[in-house]
C-alpha cells in the first residue's frame, strides 16, 4: 500500500507543490494579515480533498489501473491506498490550519479559542464525507463522469432541508441544532465520527465496485 501511495505523491507532486504555494500565500494574506482564518480553513482543506480526484485523473490518463492489478497488490489494497492517502492528506491540511491559527494567536498575543478547532474538525468531517461520495463514483464512472454525477447529487441535502421545511419538520430541526450548539463538543465529535464512518462504509462499497471491474 505504501508503494501505491508513494506513486500517487510522485505522480502529482507538481499539484502538491502548487497547492502548498497557494496555501502559504492564502495563510499569509487572509490569515495573518487579514485575521480571517475562517476563510483560510475550508480553502486549505479543500485543496487536499481534491487531491484524490487528481490522482484518479492521472491514473486514467496512463491507463494505470490495468497494469496496477498485475502487480503483487490485491484489488482491495489498491482501493485502500486511495482512502488512506485521502485521510492522511486531509488530516495534514487540518493540522496545518490548526497550527497556523495557533501561531497567529501566539504572535498577536490573542486568546486561543476552540472555535478554530471546531471549524477545522467540521471542515475535515465535511471533507471525509465528500470523499466518501466522490471515490466510489469515480471508481464506477471514471473521473470525468463522476464529477457530473457528484454535481447532480450535491444539492440533495439542500433539497432535503427544503422538503423538511415544507413538511413543517424544520422547526424541530432548528431546536435540535440549538440543543447541539449548547453541546459543541458533542456536536463536533458526532460530526467527526460521522465523517469517519462514512469513509469506512464508502471504502467497503468502493472495494466491491473495484473487485467487479473489468479492463
Amino acid at each position, binding site marked *: 500500500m505504501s508503494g*501505491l501511495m*508513494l506513486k500517487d505523491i510522485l*505522480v502529482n507532486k*507538481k499539484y502538491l507543490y502548487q497547492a502548498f504555494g497557494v496555501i502559504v500565500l492564502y495563510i499569509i494574506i487572509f490569515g495573518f494579515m487579514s485575521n480571517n482564518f475562517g476563510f483560510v480553513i475550508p480553502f486549505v482543506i479543500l485543496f487536499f480533498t481534491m487531491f484524490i480526484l487528481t490522482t484518479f485523473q492521472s491514473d486514467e490518463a496512463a491507463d*494505470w489501473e490495468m497494469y496496477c492489478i498485475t502487480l503483487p497488490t490485491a484489488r482491495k489494497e489498491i482501493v485502500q491506498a486511495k482512502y488512506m492517502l485521502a485521510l492522511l492528506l486531509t488530516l495534514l491540511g487540518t493540522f496545518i490550519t490548526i497550527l497556523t491559527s495557533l501561531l497567529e494567536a501566539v504572535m498577536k498575543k490573542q486568546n486561543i479559542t476552540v472555535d478554530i478547532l471546531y471549524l477545522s474538525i467540521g471542515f475535515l468531517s465535511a471533507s471525509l464525507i465528500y470523499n466518501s461520495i466522490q471515490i466510489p463514483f469515480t471508481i464506477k464512472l471514471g473521473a470525468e463522469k463522476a464529477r457530473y454525477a457528484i454535481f447532480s447529487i450535491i444539492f440533495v441535502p439542500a433539497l432535503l432541508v427544503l422538503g423538511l421545511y415544507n413538511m413543517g419538520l424544520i422547526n424541530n430541526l432548528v431546536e435540535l441544532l440549538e440543543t447541539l450548539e449548547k453541546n459543541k463538543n458533542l456536536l463536533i465529535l458526532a460530526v467527526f465520527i460521522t465523517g469517519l464512518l462514512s469513509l469506512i462504509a464508502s471504502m467497503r462499497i468502493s472495494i466491491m465496485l473495484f473487485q467487479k471491474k*473489468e*479492463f
Partner: protein
Amino acid sequence: MEYCLQVSDLTKQYNGFCLDHVSFDVKQGSIMGFIGENGAGKSTTIKAILNLIHPDDGKIQILGEDNTLQSRECKELIGVVFDECHFHDNLNAEETGLFLSKIYTNWDDIQYKNYLNKFNLPPKKRIKEYSRGMKMKLSIAAALSHHPKLLLLDEATSGLDPVIRNEILDVFYDFIQDEEHSILMSSHITSDLEHIADYVTFIHNGKIILSDSKDNILENYAIVKCTKSEFSQIDSSHIVGFRSNAYSCEVLINNRSTALKNYSRMTIDRATLEDIMLYYGKEGM
C-alpha cells in the same frame, strides 16, 4: 512443475465476440508464441490470465495456483508487459523504480539500473519525453527487475522498429536461458515468434486452431502451388485453406511429408507462421 501456465476451457462472451473454450499449456522453461490476427482474442486471453476480466467459464493455473486466488507470492513471480507503457508520463525511470521497489518484495534495484544502462534510458528524463521504443524498454526493465519466473507479453514488440525489436528479443532470449523461466508472448508479428518461440498457439475468432511446437508446425505445414485442375487431386482432409486466381491455386496443407510423396509434380514450399495465419484467417474453404 511441468507447466507454468495451464489454460482450460476458457470462455468469455462479449457482444459480437466469444472466447470459445480456449485451452493451452505453457511448459516451464519454454517460450510460447500466442499468435492470431487483430481481434482474434489474444489480449482477451491474456487479460483473463491476469484476472483483468472475469471469464464465464474455464480454469487457469499460473505457477501451480488458481489465477483467481493468486497469492502475493505468486504475483511477485510474474512480469507483465503490455503493448503500451502504463507508467505515468510525468514520472521518470528513477521515480518509477522507487515506488515499484516498495511494491515488489523481490525488487532488485541494481538489476533495474543495469537494464536502464543497457537500454540507454536516462533515469531522470520524464517518460513523456521517451520515444515509443524507450517506453517499451522501460516496461520490460520493470518487468524483469523483480526476478520473475513467468513473463507475460501482450504485443510487447508491436509498433517498434526492427532494430529495437531485435534488441528486445535478445533480452527475452537471455531471460529464457534459465530453465525455470518461461514466456508467453502474444503477437501478430510472426517473424518475431519464428525467431524465438519454442511452441506456438494459434487463435482465430476466439478459438484455438492449433497448439504445437514451432518446429513441428513448420515441418508439417506447406504451401502447394498447383493449377486449378491439379487442385482436385489434393486430399481435402489436409487442406487448411487456399487462394486462387485465374490460372493457379496456392493451398496450405498440414501434412507436408505426405504431400512431398503424393504431389511431387507440384511445387511445395515450407509454410511460414505468417502463411498459416493468413490462410486460417482467410477461411478459403
